[in-house]
């Protein structure tokens, strides 16, 4: 059924991605590809993998953006231009436009936990869902001819044959900077919900009306370069020195 669940899902499993912490190492991209090429559904194929024109199916990609405030073309002058690494995967939207356009019933949103999935045995590979998604979260696998997307590692998170610590999406488990968090965003007391509340987590493209479950934590304000100047001056000044350092200061002064 490609109609969305009538009632809001009880649980809304999803990711919270901290843009303040992500270092842009792409480990989540590789870990996602590695897990999911052998996991749920068809393998994530590559085209011309050893040639010049290599391409392939990925469920998670990291973009890097340059954000320039008004008049901040030069770093350290008027503004604080900065680089933000930006991992992007399916946001498991509550009003997922990719689900309702599916003509076959292959795309669906689960009532029990809100995960958006593709039943690959029913997918005809028309590509309309990829068109409907404003985020580019869906990619057609050119070898299998079916639509691939983030499953929130549905084959890990409920998997009792692996250790409990591993029962999180592969990208979350891998992230060396702890920039990715997984949990129930419908529960206001969950770690992820608390994090979103504390840091002012945001929706991507709210104007598209998709109501994404995944949230992004915006980068914290950066300490301006000028604010460190005071510390530099301190190093030149020995007025406040006490004890051994005061004695050393006096000795050196006399030499």
């Amino acid at each position, binding site marked *: 059924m490609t109609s969305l669940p009538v009632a809001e899902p009880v649980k809304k499993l999803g990711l919270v991605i901290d843009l303040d912490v992500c270092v842009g190492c792409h480990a989540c991209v590789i870990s996602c590809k590695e897990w999911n090429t052998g996991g749920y559904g068809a393998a994530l194929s590559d085209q011309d993998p050893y040639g010049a024109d290599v391409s392939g199916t990925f469920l998670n990609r990291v973009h890097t953006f340059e954000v320039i405030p008004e008049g901040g073309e030069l770093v350290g002058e008027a503004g604080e231009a900065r680089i933000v690494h930006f991992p992007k995967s399916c946001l498991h939207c509550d009003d997922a*436009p990719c689900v309702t356009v599916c003509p076959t019933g292959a795309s669906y949103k689960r009532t029990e936990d809100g995960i958006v999935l593709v039943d690959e045995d029913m997918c005809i590979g028309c590509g309309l869902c990829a068109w409907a998604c404003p985020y580019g979260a869906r990619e057609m696998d050119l070898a299998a001819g079916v639509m691939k997307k983030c499953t929130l590692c549905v084959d890990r998170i409920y998997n009792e044959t692996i250790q409990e610590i591993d029962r999180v999406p592969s990208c979350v488990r891998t992230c060396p900077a702890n920039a990715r968090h997984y949990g129930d965003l419908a529960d206001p007391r969950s770690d992820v919900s608390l994090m979103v509340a504390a840091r002012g987590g945001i929706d991507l493209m709210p104007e598209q009306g998709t109501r994404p479950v995944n949230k992004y934590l915006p980068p914290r304000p950066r300490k301006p370069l000028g604010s460190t100047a005071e510390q530099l001056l301190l190093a030149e000044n020995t007025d406040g020195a006490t004890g051994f350092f005061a004695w050393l200061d006096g000795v050196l002064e006399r030499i």
Partner: protein
Amino acid sequence: MHPALSIIAFTTVSGLGYGLAISLGGGFLDPSALSTKIAHVTALVLIGAGLMSSTLHLGNPQRAWRAFSQWRSSWLSREGVMAVLTFVPLAASAGFSLWESRYVPAIGMLGAFLSMVTVYCTAMIYASLKSVPAWHTPLTPLCYLFFSLSGGFGLATLFAVLGDGRVVMPASLAIAFLALAWSAKLFWRNRMNTLRPTSTPETATGLGFIGKVRLFERPHINDNYLTSEMGFRVARKHAAKLAAMSFVLGGGLPILLLAVVLGSTAQPVLMFAAFLAVLSHVTGMLVERWLFFAEARHAVMNYYST
């Protein structure tokens, strides 16, 4: 958006077929004329060929039958269901013309109505996508319907010339629909060209509170499915030229040629003008459809700064 040849061919050819079916369903052609019988078959062949070509871009066409199941939510599914439903009265109308040389108004009208609904469904597949702002307007189905009608009545004029020669109705209607279609298209293009994009790199990343966002590094060096499917770009100067071409070939020239059909009595002139009108219109439509895809910008490109 990537202008896939199979979809361009499908929407153009099936649109033409449904238009012809609508003119036949309206009873504008003599049902006993051999040319009308051929017209019935032509309409069915055009529609069938269009539907066949639409399955060519599928990754798994052998499961295409599943696409009839989700008509509650999906315009693509509705289009499939309507296409099959429409075939029934159209085939019946063709049968009455072929074997009994008669026109049954009830079945004809039903076929015409369902044809319009099918074309509407096709257009709504695109118009329903909020992620492609250029398409997301009621003007899209309006254009599709008028283009289908103008092409269909143009083709009906050709068959009328080949048949009993009563061209006044189909030719006048074709001219009217051509004028309506290209006026609607003009509004559509103006809307697209002056559109404020729904989403921007700032809203796409949520980083607008810091400043202007631009891509520093792509996720991968080479193209991927998203950039090749959604990232197609056509040079603006070329787009303007192509658009002008589509208006002239698809609208201006056919109107002039159909006016010649209305004014002339010499059979060779009539045949030549009507044939050329159809040919010119179809060529113009292919260009129009190519641009429909090539010029449309998808929201995902906010992540690729193109």
